[in-house]
């Protein structure tokens, strides 16, 4: 399945059906992320239930402390 993650086209393993699975497949292990799918914010509590489909545009931002 092909999706665009942070502007790059990625081939994800079959069965990568949710935001949680996508984050695991991409090895995004930071504890605090902002995830947008097709421009819409996905809150942390919904990662495991939010579906990902072929052709989706996904933006993932790592949030780390400092300022």
């Amino acid at each position, binding site marked *: 399945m092909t999706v665009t993650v942070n502007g790059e086209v990625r081939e994800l393993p079959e069965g990568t059906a949710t935001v949680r699975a996508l984050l695991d497949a991409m090895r995004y292990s930071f504890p605090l992320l902002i995830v947008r799918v097709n421009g819409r914010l996905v809150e942390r509590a919904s990662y495991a239930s939010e579906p990902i489909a072929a052709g989706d545009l996904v933006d993932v931002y790592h*949030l780390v402390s400092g300022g």
Partner: protein
Amino acid sequence: MTRQEYRERLREKRVGIAGAGGLGSNCAIALARAGVGSLVVADFDRVSLDNLDRQAYFLDQVGMLKIEALALNIARIDPSIQVEAHAVRLDRGTLAAIFSDCDVIVEAFDAAEAKVMFIETLLEELRDRPLVCASGVAGYGRPESFRVRRSGALRMVGDFESGVGPDNPPMAPRVGIAASMEADLVMEVLLA
């Protein structure tokens, strides 16, 4: 546009800044110097001696509320700039109301959890309002690692990995670069 025409346009603008620490104080000073006419600043904290390593305050301001010290410092640059200061701890309940009439809102928090709260709350409550945020500003060196990422109304600066830790404190040069990049993205929004 000429310098004067730019300043006249910025004079009419109102910018929100959530947090008045390293990012917020330096970003506010840059925007004040650039000619932004109205700033809304919120922070509950007081200036401490340790803050002087990167924040836009002075030794004789230790102990003052940061928002009060910041308003004084901006007034020394241009007393006609309107500064609306809120001594509050920003949370999901207060954020949107305080910044609701701003043209663009800057995230200038320290803690990653607060950054997430800012983005989630304002994307939800003030849809399509331009937001400028920072992530990954600690330590020193590798200035070329700073990037800007844009996704709709959301703009973010930083290297997205250098978090503050016991061996990786925030330091003036990198925090200053990030604060200036945030201010520059505000200019991009305001003058678009």
